[in-house]
């Protein structure tokens, strides 16, 4: 390459980098003010410089790096091939390790872990409908709201016990799932996504305005914590173990479902609805079932959420929460139970870990998601099926 060419390329690159930096600066200006905005601009500049440097890396090594990222984490494939006893023992061992680790955690860590547990429940629930059955549901957090308010209202008004509310909240959310599913599940793809998005918003707005029942935007205070034979759940530690148990239960059931006749039919439906229907799979009924099961777990997670916060308000069930849970499922690996758990834990912990960078954490968070989707579109721990799918495309 001649020197003239090099300088020309460099000049266009620099111009582009300057353009991006200026654009980002203007974008964050109203949010962060002129001085702090400069830091963002600087970060963008650094990223540009890194990208420039990456271009100097020989293509062969770059390819190898990308392939390692894509192919790395062959966990699901590896799991399939390891001896049966390892597969059975690994989850129990992990559970035991977490239970022991819980003894040494600070109340703050326990609290974050408990929140992560609630997200894991939500993600496992959403995985049934999005990951297994392949139906895009956007307003999922609404089912959780149904569960949370069921417990909040019945506990404050009628002193209903937590242990009764747990299945009841799930069942009520499942009923809502059924009611929503009946008219909408004939819709395909994007249309279903929009309808469920609408449902989520309607639920939140209803909670916000039905003052006589939900106390509107002020929310419901004074929810009693769960208790068991005279023992009351009061410390973060107690909730941690409660959530650990629930997550174990949900993961176990998810795994069972995945490997059952129904799980197989869900996947078949996702792969080719027409073919599944022709093979005698009643697709409409199964979609409804997937929807109802997902709603049930959403409701259960809601009850747990209310019992931990001891306070519910419509604010907690906004659209961003639905998006967050969806991100957990997608980033972790759709249709893969360990992947979804991992995704939920990571995304729940990431904002906490990033507290050090204060208000920039959302930016870092966003960047992390973009990078992940760029380099590992199949998720962190994909199911064997998806692993194969993406390996071939690569």
């Amino acid at each position: 390459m001649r020197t003239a060419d090099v300088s020309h390329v460099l000049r266009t690159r620099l111009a582009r980098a300057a353009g991006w930096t200026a654009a980002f600066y203007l974008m964050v200006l109203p949010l962060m003010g002129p001085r702090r905005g400069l830091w963002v601009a600087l970060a963008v500049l650094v990223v540009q410089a890194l990208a420039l440097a990456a271009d100097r890396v020989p293509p062969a090594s770059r390819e190898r790096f990308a392939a390692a990222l894509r192919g790395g984490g062959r966990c699901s494939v590896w799991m399939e091939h390891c001896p049966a006893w390892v597969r059975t023992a690994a989850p129990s061992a992990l559970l035991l390790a977490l239970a022991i680790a819980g003894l040494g955690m600070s109340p703050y860590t326990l609290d974050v872990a408990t929140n992560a547990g609630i997200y894991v429940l939500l993600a496992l629930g959403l995985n049934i409908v999005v990951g297994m059955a392949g139906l895009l549901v956007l307003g999922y957090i609404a089912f959780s709201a149904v569960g949370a308010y069921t417990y909040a209202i019945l506990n404050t008004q009628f002193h209903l016990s937590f242990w009764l509310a747990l299945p009841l909240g799930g069942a009520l959310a499942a009923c809502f799932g059924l009611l929503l599913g009946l008219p909408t599940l004939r819709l395909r793809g994007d249309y279903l996504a929009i309808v469920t998005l609408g449902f989520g918003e309607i639920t939140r707005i209803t909670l916000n305005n039905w003052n006589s029942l939900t106390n509107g935007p002020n929310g419901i205070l004074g929810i009693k914590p769960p208790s068991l034979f005279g023992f009351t759940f009061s410390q973060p530690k107690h909730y941690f173990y409660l959530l650990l148990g629930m997550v174990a239960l949900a993961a176990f059931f998810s795994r069972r479902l995945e490997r059952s006749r129904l799980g197989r039919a869900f996947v078949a439906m996702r792969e080719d609805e027409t073919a599944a229907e022709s093979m005698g799979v009643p697709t409409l009924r199964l979609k409804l079932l997937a929807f109802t099961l997902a709603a049930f777990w959403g409701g259960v997670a809601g009850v747990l959420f209310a019992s931990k916060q001891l306070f519910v308000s419509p604010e907690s069930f906004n659209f961003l929460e639905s998006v967050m849970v969806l991100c957990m499922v997608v980033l972790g690996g759709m249709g893969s139970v360990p992947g979804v758990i991992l995704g939920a834990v990571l995304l729940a912990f990431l904002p906490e870990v990033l507290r050090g960078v204060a208000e920039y954490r959302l930016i870092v968070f966003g960047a992390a998601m973009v990078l992940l989707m760029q380099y590992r579109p199949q998720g962190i721990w994909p199911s064997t099926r998806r692993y194969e799918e993406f390996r071939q495309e690569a």
Partner: protein
Amino acid sequence: MAQALAIQNLTMRFDGLTAVDRADLSLQDRQIVSLIGPNGAGKTTLFNCVTGHYAPTEGTVHLGKDELLSGLPPHTIAKKGVVRTFQNIRLFPAMSAVENVMVGRHCRTRAGVLGALLGPPSVRREERAIRARARELLAFCGAAEYEDQQARNLPYGVQRRLEIARALAAEPKILCLDEPAAGMNPRETADLITLITAIRGLGITVFLIEHHMNVVMSISDRVAVMDHGVKIAEGTPDQVQKNPAVIAAYLGEAVGSG
């Protein structure tokens, strides 16, 4: 011989277009009946009406003596015993070959949500039986060695046979094959002829759409010919081959060509 399937006065209209026009056809038990005709004659539309993908505008489809099929959804029709394959192969690409066939067992098995979650012995037994049967059928269709491979990776001819194995898993009384030999080489076609004959040997009636004339003429008990949505001929392979209307449909009218 008892009647397996009766199509009566079947008409399918899409707005102005009449794709199938008052078709009558009846299949007897254990017969291989082929439906032939030029492209766009309405063969696949007729199949879609039989298997419930379309609700016919007029006319009826009966299974056996008097069980009405027309108007039912595809999954119910499959459960009643009419199962199909597709002209453009429609497997579940991300599932393994054996899983594809296992899905075919769905309508013959029972395990529900509670069964899946609690996993009692009866459910486990059923699951084992599903897998065992799926393996048998893969072997029957000559695809045993591909058991654990993803359907998307299989050679074309194997995909065709896998689709037949999946349909057989649903225990059909009538198996509808939509151009199973399409794109096959002579060797694969010969295997397919053997397979279809073996399927009839299981006591299954085969309803076949096919363009390969050597397949049609060598295995069919009866052949029906469609052109422009109308059934123009029906009979044994010999009769059909000599029928002037059929020759005209395939080679063009002699009239007017001078």
